[in-house]
């Protein structure tokens, strides 16, 4: 076609024109070779154009499709590996409307299987004694609660009654006994079991085995029982197999108004049980509190990190009190859950808060410590603007004026480099030793239990050298070490703004809690105006202490400091006592004094340069360690400091102190 030259006459334009050309051509069939070739070329060109348009169309369609596919960049994709696992929930509307439940009770093992899936299995030695209770959702068959009540021990039956009463009517209840469950199963509990329709439950005897499946407020679906033949032996293992008919989802749910809050409530209540009136159909407990805002709130934009484990009922109680505190800003709260536990996450979602789960990487104390580190780092990452963070734990009640307390004192952390933290907890603030909610102290120990951490302290000092997992250290003990604290002090209130209610914890047991935490004073007065906050700064505080010591009346040192009569029956006076303290780390006498005053004596807390401040009988009571304390100069020469000898090795009775 290279040799072809278009004639000036021939200009193909459109189909019509072409058509006329064709006709012309048809009639002039003669030797118009050039013309024929031209037509051929035209046709070929035309075909070519068609092909091009076709290709373009195909390309375009493909591009449109790929664009609709979200045009993911390959190198950006590496973090998407965590595929989105759509929850494959069993639908209640499926064909299977019956659950097949197996319950086993014996001396050393209990298990419960629902549709072949084991939902409870306990064959550990020396553990899990008592009545195991499982609550299933009657529409879905999901496990909503799992508890064990050691009704061999006292008071556990009361807890069981409380729990069973909270369970919504219609739920499926499963009970099974491991080892022994009758010794402290009192009449109230037995009556409740009878009201559930159980025959054997109310008659449960020493070392009997018992398995029960029933609907709350409805029919019993199965029960098996085996009596113990003799005091020294157990009943035969029983295995109960029964079918549980499922009801419809509508039946299982309450008819709350369709609001955002109730949607959260519904989601929560269909998954878990045992949270009391929050799930009751009539008049449920609110889950939004809208406490009064604080005027001039200085901590409105301070993030709050709640450190939690798998104690969802504690977390529930804690978050309720936190969200009821004046000046709280819920969007600043993050709950850090140590482990992939669902129920704490459900509690967090109920209150519409942010929850973050943490994969366990270490054991026991070190695990807690690593959890703290991850939580604190995450808090400052999530709130890069924050200069401080409030650190709370799941087993604390938060005082109504918690944020007001912080708002009034937080500027101290900014202005005074000699401060380590502000804490809401006074280790020595018991019912009988704390009095004045407006009073603040400076102490050399770090109490924790609701405190404020400065970002610069964390980022520059603590985070880089935080104990590694293999160290197995308690984070709080580590923070109290002189290498970390470096002589800095914490601000605490006289009357604590947090209350430690946890009794099941890593370092906790019932006795310990009773002895050291239960009688702690907790402020319930809203809007307390703190007194003289600026006098808590380093220099000003010394002036304040000297003033106090100057006006304090020296107590009669010949009396026994453990006796109530050591302090006169006055009110509003300031008294001082001097105890022996040879060196900065000599706390012999103080520890004995703390013991007999029934305050914290496991280690030294609440001291400031050899001075302790507390209240007794509504009088301010100062204790100065002589001669280690710089305040020893205030001791009148005639006074001999009190010396209390530690008891010999075996535990001496508290108060059995000797006087010099």
């Amino acid at each position: 076609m290279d040799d072809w030259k278009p004639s000036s006459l021939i200009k193909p334009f459109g189909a019509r024109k072409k058509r006329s050309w064709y006709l012309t051509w048809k009639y002039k069939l003669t030797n118009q070779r050039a013309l024929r070739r031209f037509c051929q070329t035209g046709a070929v060109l035309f075909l070519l154009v068609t092909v091009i348009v076709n290709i373009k169309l195909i390309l375009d369609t493909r591009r449109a499709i790929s664009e609709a596919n979200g045009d993911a960049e390959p190198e950006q994709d590496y973090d998407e590996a965590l595929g989105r696992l759509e929850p494959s929930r069993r639908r209640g509307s499926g064909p299977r409307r019956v659950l097949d439940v197996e319950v086993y009770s014996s001396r050393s093992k209990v298990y419960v299987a629902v549709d072949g899936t084991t939902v409870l299995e306990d064959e550990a030695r020396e553990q899990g004694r008592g009545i195991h209770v499982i609550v299933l959702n009657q529409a879905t068959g999901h496990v909503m609660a799992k508890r064990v009540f050691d009704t061999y021990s006292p008071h556990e039956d009361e807890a069981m009654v409380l729990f069973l009463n909270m369970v919504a009517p219609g739920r499926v209840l499963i009970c099974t006994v491991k080892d022994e469950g009758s010794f402290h199963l009192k009449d109230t509990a037995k009556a409740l079991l009878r009201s559930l329709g159980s025959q054997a439950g109310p008659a449960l005897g020493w070392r009997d085995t018992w398995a029960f499946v029933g609907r709350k407020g409805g029919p019993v679906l199965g029960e098996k029982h085996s009596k113990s033949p003799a005091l020294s032996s157990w009943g035969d293992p029983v295995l109960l197999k029964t079918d549980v008919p499922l009801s419809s989802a509508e039946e299982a749910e309450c008819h709350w108004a369709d609001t955002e809050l109730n949607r959260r409530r519904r989601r929560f209540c269909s998954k878990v049980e045992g949270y009391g009136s929050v799930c009751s159909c009539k008049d449920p407990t609110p889950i939004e509190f809208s406490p009064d805002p604080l005027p001039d709130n200085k901590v409105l934009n301070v993030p709050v990190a709640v450190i939690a484990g798998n104690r969802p009922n504690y977390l529930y109680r804690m978050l309720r009190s936190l969200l009821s505190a004046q000046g709280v800003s819920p969007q600043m709260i993050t709950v850090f859950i140590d482990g992939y536990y669902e129920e704490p996450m459900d509690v967090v979602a109920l209150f519409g808060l942010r929850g973050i789960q943490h994969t366990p990487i270490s054991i026991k104390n070190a695990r807690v410590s690593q959890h703290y580190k991850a939580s604190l780092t995450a808090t400052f990452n999530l709130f890069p603007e924050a200069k401080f963070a409030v650190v709370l734990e799941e087993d604390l009640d938060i005082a109504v004026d918690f944020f007001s307390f912080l708002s009034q004192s937080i500027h101290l952390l900014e202005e005074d480099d000699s401060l380590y933290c502000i804490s809401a907890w006074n280790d020595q603030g018991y019912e009988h030793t704390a009095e004045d909610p407006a009073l603040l102290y400076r102490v050399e120990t770090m109490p924790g239990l609701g405190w404020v951490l400065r970002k610069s302290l964390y980022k520059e000092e603590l985070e880089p050298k935080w104990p590694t997992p293999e160290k197995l250290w308690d984070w709080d003990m580590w923070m109290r070490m002189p290498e970390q604290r470096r002589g800095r002090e914490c601000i605490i209130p006289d009357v604590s703004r947090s209350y430690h209610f946890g009794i099941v914890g890593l370092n906790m047991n019932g006795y310990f809690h009773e002895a050291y935490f239960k009688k702690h004073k907790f402020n319930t007065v809203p809007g307390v105006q703190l007194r003289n906050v600026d006098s808590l700064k380093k220099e000003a505080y010394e002036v304040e202490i000297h003033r106090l010591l100057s006006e304090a009346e020296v107590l009669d040192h010949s009396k026994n400091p453990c006796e109530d009569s050591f302090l006169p029956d006055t009110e509003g006076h300031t008294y001082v006592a001097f105890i022996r303290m040879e060196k900065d780390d000599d706390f012999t006498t103080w520890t004995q004094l703390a013991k007999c005053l029934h305050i914290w004596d496991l280690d030294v807390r609440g001291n400031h340069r050899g001075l302790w401040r507390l209240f007794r009988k509504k009088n301010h009571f100062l204790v100065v360690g002589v001669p280690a304390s710089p305040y020893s100069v205030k001791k009148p020469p005639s006074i001999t400091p009190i010396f209390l000898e530690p008891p010999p090795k075996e535990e001496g009775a508290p108060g059995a102190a000797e006087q010099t």
Partner: protein
Amino acid sequence: MSRINKNVILALLTLTSSAFLLFQLYYYKHYLSAKNGAGLSKSKGSRIGFDSTQWRAVKKFIMLTSSQNVPVFLIDPLILELINKDFEQLKNTSLGSTSECKFFCVRRDFTTFALRYHLWKNEEGWFRIAENMGFQCLKIESKDPRLDGIDSLSGTEIPLHYICRLANHAIHLVVFHERSGNYLWHGHLRLKGHMDRKFVPFRKLRFGRYPGAFDRPELQQITVDGLEVFIPKDPVHFLEEIPHSRFIECRYKEARAFFQQYLDDNTVEAMAFRKNAKELLQLAAKTLKKLGVRFWLSSGTCLGWYRQCNIIPYSKDVDLGIFIQDYKSDIISAFQDVGLPLKHKFGKVEDSLELSFQGKDDIKLDIFFFYEETDHMWNGGTQAKTGKKFKYLFPKFTLCWTEFVDMKIHVPCETIEYIEANYGKTWKIPVKTWDWKRSPPNVQPNGIWPISEWDEVIQLY
């Protein structure tokens, strides 16, 4: 006869072909208009005024956000540009005097707003109200990248984008999250399996193709076309940031794997070095930013970021790269003013320039200047003793933002190519002895400086 037949066949072929072509053209046109949304071709003809669907959608959206206290500001590049052109006039014409809809009525598929997430208090109720107002909304969520750097945390997902459609106009709400390093970050708009791919023409979105990072803008409220909106106080700066806002996350997962294989050095010396190097880097970044000089992490510092998301404790210095066209003569004096004296200067602006500054505690700040050729980039090296020149070749690269030691900072987007050029395929293995003249695979001898020039091109202090 055979010839005629051939011609007839050809003619017939042409006819069918043209018919086919016509059909295709028709189909193609139909397809195009379907893709762009049925309404767009319609609004073409309609009067551009206050009754335009764009304006109405924006108005409704602004009503919604102000009543629900959703902290949004306008970032739509198209409208910001228009506003910027007319900025003085807009400031002068006070409220109410809106004779003509000039900005929000301009034809477009989207109006883009940004949401300042950390100021947002009522996240839950908003969506529902938007839907009640007639918006059809799509929410794109993802995991929080701010938790990526920390071992084993997994949180609730955070919203990254909202796209709300009203009639044939869509509002794209880009969620800006605060990040450490005083900047705002937005995520990648990635559609998940169940989402409607035809919801809006996603391709035309101006944000979300990549994650992005922006300086936190100061805002101002202005009245545009009778609507009160917040816009960045410095729209020019914001507009300039948009094309270069692409952000890449550090590869935390790989970094953790690295530290599992080669334990992290947590000795006192290593921690002290990291702290000092971080401070030096922050100081250098601040100084260069003030001068308006673009720079990026180079050599060992870049490797540290890419491989372990941290400063390599035995690297002894901090390395930065600067394009030679960004060179400013007052760099040296600016560094001196902040307490970083010049340690040596090799080469000259035309060739192989390299500056070294002395930080505290014996840490050096090396700045390499990069020269661009048609198919590669290079920077130079000079051996002080011999006057030998070296050339380090890199494939061409562009700059992306990342976060490093609490800073928003540039790195080459094509990081892996950059690092492999510099350290070879074995960059994953830590090497403590490194000879800058021999070890890099991309080094080339580049002759020798003429002795007459030594005074200029080899300056040691």
